[in-house]
């Protein structure tokens, strides 16, 4: 196993973080550290502690939630996620306890509201290694992005600049007849960072055996939770494989501002049309009658 000069900012509830680590592990890579954040709204008491006490002391008093997230999701959602694991190179059981320690030399676990959280920012600033992998957690403010020598990798579901913005997986299927992913350095724009590597795959065609009680929204969320991260993780593990000894100086290509298009959240009617392209609409119970 090789330890790479990378810190993963993982969201405790997010499947993407786990998938990246799993794919890196399959290629015999461990990351230097996982900053495991429980992104959630703080209680009034926790807010009070945060304002009144020094950062590192208040953080000790704010609870870290258990990593067991299996009870958050419905059995239908879990069944759909398990179904999608039949179509990925390295399946993951997302609903069992995830052993973060297996994938890294060190895990640091704490709670933060979002990337504006001063404790999270302090933790990032204090790291000697300034190569981070963004996996989730919402908008990253300029105070985090604009640090000298800091590089934040992001893998977006879609080929930039052609498919920027929301619902990249589905928009790629509709507009390019392929699904894709792009690895770039995050900047202040929406998917406008300098491009490191991109990859496209043929649109997957899933089997049409039904899942009882499955509705459009659950199917869509399951696809994004348990299939989409595998494409992104496959690309990122290839990037690391190509550049693991020089993560500080990976060549990248600047995007032209007027190139490509930015897409927005997809309306359910168009989502259904995109899912049809993947052979998925027949899995939805409500469409059967």
């Amino acid at each position: 196993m090789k330890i790479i000069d990378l810190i993963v900012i993982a969201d405790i509830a997010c499947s993407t973080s786990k998938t990246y680590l799993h794919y890196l592990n399959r290629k015999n890579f461990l990351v230097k550290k996982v900053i495991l954040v429980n992104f959630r709204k703080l209680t009034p008491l926790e807010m009070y502690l945060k304002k009144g006490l020094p950062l590192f002391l208040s953080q000790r008093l704010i609870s870290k939630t258990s990593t067991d997230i299996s009870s958050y999701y419905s059995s239908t959602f879990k069944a759909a996620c398990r179904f999608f694991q039949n179509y990925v190179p390295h399946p993951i059981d997302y609903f069992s306890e995830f052993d973060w320690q297996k994938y890294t030399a060190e895990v640091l676990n704490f709670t933060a509201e979002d990337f504006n959280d001063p404790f999270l920012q302090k933790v990032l600033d204090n790291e000697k290694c300034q190569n981070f992998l963004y996996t989730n957690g919402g908008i990253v403010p300029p105070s985090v992005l604009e640090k000298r020598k800091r590089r934040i990798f992001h893998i977006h579901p879609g080929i930039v600049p052609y498919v920027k913005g929301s619902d990249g997986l589905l928009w790629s299927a509709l507009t390019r007849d392929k699904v894709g992913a792009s690895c770039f350095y995050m900047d202040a724009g929406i998917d406008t960072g300098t491009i490191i590597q991109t990859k496209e795959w043929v649109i997957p065609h899933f089997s049409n055996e039904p899942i009882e009680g499955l509705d459009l929204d659950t199917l869509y969320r399951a696809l994004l939770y348990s299939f989409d991260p595998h494409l992104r993780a496959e690309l990122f593990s290839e990037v690391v494989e190509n550049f693991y000894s020089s993560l500080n100086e990976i060549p990248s290509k600047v995007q032209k501002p007027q190139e490509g298009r930015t897409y927005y959240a997809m309306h359910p009617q168009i989502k259904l049309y995109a899912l049809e392209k993947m052979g998925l609409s027949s899995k939805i119970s409500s469409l059967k009658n």
Partner: protein
Amino acid sequence: MKIDEIKKQLALKKDTLIQHLEPSIEGKIDLRQEIMSLPFDPLQLTSMQKVFIEQLCKHMDVKKQLFISYDKNFKKTASDEKLSIIWTLYLLDLISFYAYVLHDLKYLNTVIKYLEINNLMSKCIFVSYFINALLNNKVTSP
């Protein structure tokens, strides 16, 4: 529905609206003037007009409302007055027509969402026809 018939109906609407057009204010983008300048045929859109429509889509998708005037970069509103329903419906009919001709599902997505949010779906003349043609006849986007 024939394309010529759609263009004819759009032209009738445009004629009505043009009579109520007020002079634009210098240094600002007057949304009504910009809408009037858009051709019926999307293949005649200039590159500037295409950029303008992309920005319009952003305002509709993200801000979820349109105002009558904006700053010269089309980023911030320059008026508190919202674009009236009659102008909004003309614009949405026009963009959904572009979506239909170009098989552009991004335009269609913006139109459907904006109509739903503003409870206008039943008032837009063509959109149901275009949704049906683009999504149910399995037309693929270029």
